[in-house]
């Protein structure tokens, strides 16, 4: 592998080439644009949203779509569009918590196991297999039984469930890179382990890691919605797309189609993360898992 020995300058130019390759695809560019809009919503939501998302108007419950309420109003007469914009904050932050927790566990253990093998590898590998043998939702439920319900706890639980998968990706990539000659020679000339990791290993496992993290963002959003829907995630009056769906479900007989807007917001976001993940995978030339 020749790319491994490249200087940092060529590496950054390689990085910008990958970004260009990703954005050149119309689907990926659209997805990236969508995520950018979502970030704007999350950061500047209060400035952008047409109404106060928490302002109730009980005389105007379940209003139809109109110019003043683009997506209608909910059971308290609150503006649905404004609430979707407000909830975009949780839609981004919640997956970040999960992915962060998964990285915090999976990355160091994966690196260690990949570089040193031995007991850590064997034990962590067994543990990962065990956790992976449980369905993700079941595992999350078990962890929530310990932590108690709530958004942050739910996302931490999801993060813990993600960790073994991430561990495997990191371990596999590290193992492959560690076999390369340049790592052997770096170790041979006395490069300390920490330096070997930062300079040689991490940049070379970045690509598979990035792909995995992007796709996990979408999965985490789906998990958040599921857990919020069954009442173990976001607690009222906070708004997430999942908890909005829960409210819409409760009032389904009054307004059957109020389940549509939050759902579409969610599907589009997950689709965007998946599309970006696939595009990065193709751009860096990783094989699609068949």
């Amino acid at each position, binding site marked *: 592998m020749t790319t491994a020995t490249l200087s940092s300058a060529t590496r950054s130019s390689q990085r910008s080439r990958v970004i260009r390759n990703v954005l050149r695809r119309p689907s990926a560019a659209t997805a990236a644009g969508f995520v950018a809009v979502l970030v704007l919503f999350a950061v500047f939501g209060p400035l952008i949203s047409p109404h106060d998302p928490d302002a109730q108007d009980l005389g105007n419950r379940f209003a139809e779509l109109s110019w003043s309420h683009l997506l209608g109003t909910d059971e308290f007469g609150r503006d649905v569009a404004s609430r979707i914009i407000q909830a975009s904050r949780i839609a981004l932050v919640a997956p970040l918590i999960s992915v962060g927790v998964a990285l915090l566990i999976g990355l160091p253990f994966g690196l260690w196991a990949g570089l040193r093998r031995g007991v850590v590898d064997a034990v962590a590998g067994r543990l990962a*297999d065990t956790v992976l043998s449980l369905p*993700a939702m079941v595992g999350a439920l078990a962890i929530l039984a310990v932590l108690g319900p709530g958004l942050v706890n739910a996302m931490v639980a999801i993060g813990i469930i993600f960790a073994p998968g991430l561990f495997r990706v990191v371990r596999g990539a590290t193992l492959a890179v560690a076999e390369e000659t340049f790592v052997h020679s770096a170790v041979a000339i006395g490069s300390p382990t920490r330096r070997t990791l930062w300079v040689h290993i991490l940049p070379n496992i970045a690509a598979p890691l990035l792909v995995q993290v992007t796709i996990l963002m*979408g999965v985490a959003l789906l998990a958040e*919605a*599921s857990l919020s*829907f069954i009442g173990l995630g976001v607690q009222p009056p906070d708004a997430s797309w999942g908890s909005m769906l829960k409210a819409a479900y409760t009032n389904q007989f009054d307004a059957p189609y109020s389940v549509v807007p939050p759902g579409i917001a969610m599907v589009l976001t997950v689709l965007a993360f998946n599309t970006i993940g696939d595009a990065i995978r193709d751009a860096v030339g990783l094989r699609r898992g068949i």
Partner: protein
Amino acid sequence: MSTRMIIRRLGGGLLVLWLVSILTFLLVHLIPGDPAEVIAGENATTADVERIRTQLGLDRPVLAQYVTWLSGVLRGDLGKSLFTDKSVLTSIAEVAPPTLVITVMAIVLAVLVGVSAGIVAGLTQGGRLDRLVSTLATLGIAMPSFWLGLVLVSVFSLTNTWLPATGYADLGEGFGTWLSHVILPSTALGLATAAELARHTRGCVADVLTRPYVRTARARGASGGWLVRRHILRNAAIPVVTVLGLQAGRLLGGAIVIEAVFGISGLGTLAVNAVLQRNYPVIQGYVLLCAVVVVLMNLIVDLAYGWINPKVRTA
């Protein structure tokens, strides 16, 4: 597959189950603070706390607790619910049928729809049908199953009143009644799996089509249905079966939310309530049961894999 291999797989499954049993057992002990106090809740009296402590055996050394608990589990005794006098096994057995029915139906639907769509897409690569299937599959993967459930209820139960919105009916209440209650939840639950299977099958069929043995078969005069049945499907099925095994556990997890959408009182509802009430014996029983189901499914997939793939059978 040779007997030796089956035994090895069985051993691997048992090892996983044992490790799951340790993790499950430790759940109670991972609770920050005094588990008995947390479980009893804030308004509990000292007597309540002591009762729970004794019932869970928390006053004994951890290892002794585990041995007692595990030997109970091996005899089929999962303990008692903290709030009723029912044994955990009875509680689970009471609510298991609806969950198992919609999960199995979901698998059947997913295989029927997903695999056939994938085959069609793979055989007509680049064509209009292929693009349609690929687009639908991408959407299906991004769509949360419970949202699809909600939309299905809006369309089929509320806007039109063709199908019941909630509840579950036993097969004893008549096939039509049963089916009308089962069809929507199973569809919602199976969609993501169908999408995943369609994608996978398409890839596998496309891959098999490039193999030299397909060309050999065509050089022998095989074509159409004969070629697809005898040369393409069996070879494409080998990787697809593996994916199917992975999906079984996912469906069991998905059922938790689907039950909530359709107001079905099944395993998932039991588990969610147990989490909200901190009813640990029930949670432990549920987690163990799920692990057993997943391990069993993996074993079945391994056997099916060996049956389809002669290289494994004789290895």
